[in-house]
């Protein structure tokens, strides 16, 4: 038996939770669309750190492959999100998320 991966670094676990809360705080309280994307980015960083710190004692290289996949998908999400921000700005000259409530079904 090897040590549980998470026994190695409780401080990493606390950091991951702190980053998750900061990301959710950003998403729930901010109105700027760019801030929302920053919140998503922070949550994604927290997940990557959780995967890598969890795999450290066992040194499983699959975790790195998973993180690389997460990063590639994150890039696509950010590119599409920022494209949407620019399109929304052209539409209504604002990036305030409240200004788009009239687009509801």
């Amino acid at each position: 038996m090897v040590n549980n991966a998470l026994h190695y670094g409780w401080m990493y676990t606390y950091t991951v939770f702190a980053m998750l809360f900061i990301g959710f705080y950003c998403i729930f309280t901010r109105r700027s669309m760019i801030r929302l994307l920053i919140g998503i980015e922070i949550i994604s960083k927290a997940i990557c750190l959780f995967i890598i710190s969890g795999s450290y004692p066992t040194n499983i290289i699959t975790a790195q492959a998973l993180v690389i996949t997460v990063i590639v998908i994150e890039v696509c999400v950010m590119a599409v999100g920022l494209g949407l921000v620019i399109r929304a700005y052209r539409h209504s000259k604002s990036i305030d998320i409240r200004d788009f409530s009239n687009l509801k079904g």
Partner: protein
Amino acid sequence: MDIVLLLGLIMCVGGAVLIRDMLKAAISLLISSIILGVIFFTLHAGYAGVFEISVVAGLIMVLFIMTISLLGENVDIKEPAIPLAVFIVLFFGFSAIIIPKILCLPQVPDKLLPVEPLKIGEVLWIHRTFDIIGQIAAIFAGVFVLFAVVNGRGKHGK
């Protein structure tokens, strides 16, 4: 050393959320990406660290800063004053309940671990082939959506 890096990471991430100037917030996020890449290196995850620094700290930050520059002064929005203390109390309460349970998860048996450490190429190309296909599909989807969103002129396009 680890604690310093982790504290720096949390401070930079918090700065990215709390700093009012959007450009400075993006730079704070950039610094947090670099710190996260260094943390990956200290955890012997070199490939993930290289990807984090080159792709996230490089490419995504270029996209962020380009968007902020395109939007100019209209990027700043007056945000509501929601107390941060509520989220801090929630964090400490949640972490006091959840994290001890996570740390008490059952141990990983040896037989589930690979006998010989694999190389990243073997893992990606042989064991995780569908991840590669998914990544390629995601990249193509992102490119096509970007073309449609940024340059597309729909039925009601101007």
